[in-house]
């Protein structure tokens, strides 16, 4: 039995490329949005004022404690099917109409999820800022916000680079669930090819290979970035193998 029919793959290449492109921009945009919110929220997270830190903590507790698939279904079907939302759509409210779009729903769920993980990562790095750096900033007469902007954040974000690269790769893998809400990402394309040709090996192994290649490229890019920005920490760097979903 010829268990790998290459013509199934070659015949569906355009579909695979379109899926790959969808995976890349969906993951990329979600990571950027997540990053944009994670930085200010990480400062709130380390605040000594519980009124500031507690809501952020509750947010990360929810989003890090539940599967991203359920979060996605909650946004797409849960919110989308509520009576109230449907009335908003009937009324043509432009903001709520966004929720009608599967791409927007996936982007929202993925951004919220990655923001929660990035935020805790940055908060951890801020907490681990060597005390000497903070003291030196004070001695220079910097205000708290100046020290945060010029000393603490740049140093913390650099140190968060290894876990951040890990998060980027996990988001790439995690985005495979987008096909659960009708989006044709790389996994979605593979599922369509599979159901058309009943060819599980061709469809899923080829998709897996494409994911593998993208992962390799990302790992390489991050290695370059770490050599550039973390050179001063090199001997003390420890490999982190944390995984999240």
């Amino acid at each position, binding site marked *: 039995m010829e268990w790998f029919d290459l013509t199934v793959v070659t015949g569906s290449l355009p579909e695979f490329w379109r899926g790959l492109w969808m995976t890349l921009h969906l993951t990329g945009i979600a990571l950027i949005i997540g990053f944009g919110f994670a930085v200010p929220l990480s400062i709130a997270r380390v605040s000594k004022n519980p009124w500031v830190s507690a809501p952020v903590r509750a947010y990360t507790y929810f989003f890090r404690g539940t599967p991203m698939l359920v979060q996605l279904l*909650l946004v797409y079907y849960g919110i989308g099917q509520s009576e109230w939302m449907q009335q908003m759509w009937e009324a043509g409210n432009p903001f709520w109409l966004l929720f009608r779009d599967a791409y927007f729903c996936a982007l929202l769920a993925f951004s919220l999820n990655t923001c929660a993980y990035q935020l805790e990562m940055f908060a951890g790095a801020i907490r681990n800022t060597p005390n000497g750096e903070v003291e030196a900033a004070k001695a220079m007469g910097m205000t708290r916000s100046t020290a945060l902007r010029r000393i603490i954040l740049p140093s913390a974000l650099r140190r968060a680079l290894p876990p951040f690269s890990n998060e980027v790769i996990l988001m790439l893998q995690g985005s495979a669930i987008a096909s659960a809400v009708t989006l044709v990402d790389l996994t979605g394309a593979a599922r369509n090819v599979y159901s058309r040709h009943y060819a599980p090996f061709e469809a899923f192994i080829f998709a897996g290979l494409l994911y593998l290649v993208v992962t390799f490229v990302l790992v390489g890019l991050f290695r370059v970035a770490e050599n550039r920005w973390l050179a001063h920490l090199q001997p003390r760097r420890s490999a982190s193998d944390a995984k999240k979903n």
Partner: protein
Amino acid sequence: MDALIEYSPSLLAGAWVTLQVAILSLMLAVGTGLLGAACKLSRLAPLRWWSALYTTVVRGVPDLVMMLLVFYGGQVLLNQVSDYLEWEMIELNAFAAGVLTIGFIFGAYFTETFRGAFQAVPAGQMEAGRAYGMSGWQTFWRVLFPQMLRYALPGMGNNWLVLLKSTAIVSMIGLSDMTWLADQAGRSTHQPFTFYLAVCVLYLAMTSVSNAVLQRLERRYNVGVREANV
């Protein structure tokens, strides 16, 4: 609310399926992880290559893609093997496919955790064991392994929490876990929000209990180890 009460037995049965998948996958992953770590630290180069290939592939391919491959493709392979050996057919259902895939994936993460932990045990400990006249196996079992476990515990805890959440994707190959049942109930009752939220609460309960247990375990395994006071 009435709908939630009507479907709660079904949802709880689904939670039990989720837990079963998670626990069985964990056992498989720990076993695979120990084996993988042994290969990574082995003196035999081919073993090191294989384990490196294993952890790289797992890190680079989404769990959903792997699960779809195992579920839809695995049975075809299994049939060819059983036909060849003239065995009765071996069935690979959604439950088995889910446990095998999640166990296989997390085996790679446990491999890294155990490898790091084995390396963290000071070499002097092994030398001391040998100096006492213990055999290679005895030093491993009595000296290296228990100490390794202490170093591995935080990583293992983290892996477990992630594994627990990954079980949700078994619903995408049709296993009636709590996510699948919530999906079904949400559609039948037209209250998907309520049911997905209920699943979130159940997952939060599971992760919270796990966190509490892990903290207690870590404290227990760290008895006799002074924490650095900076």
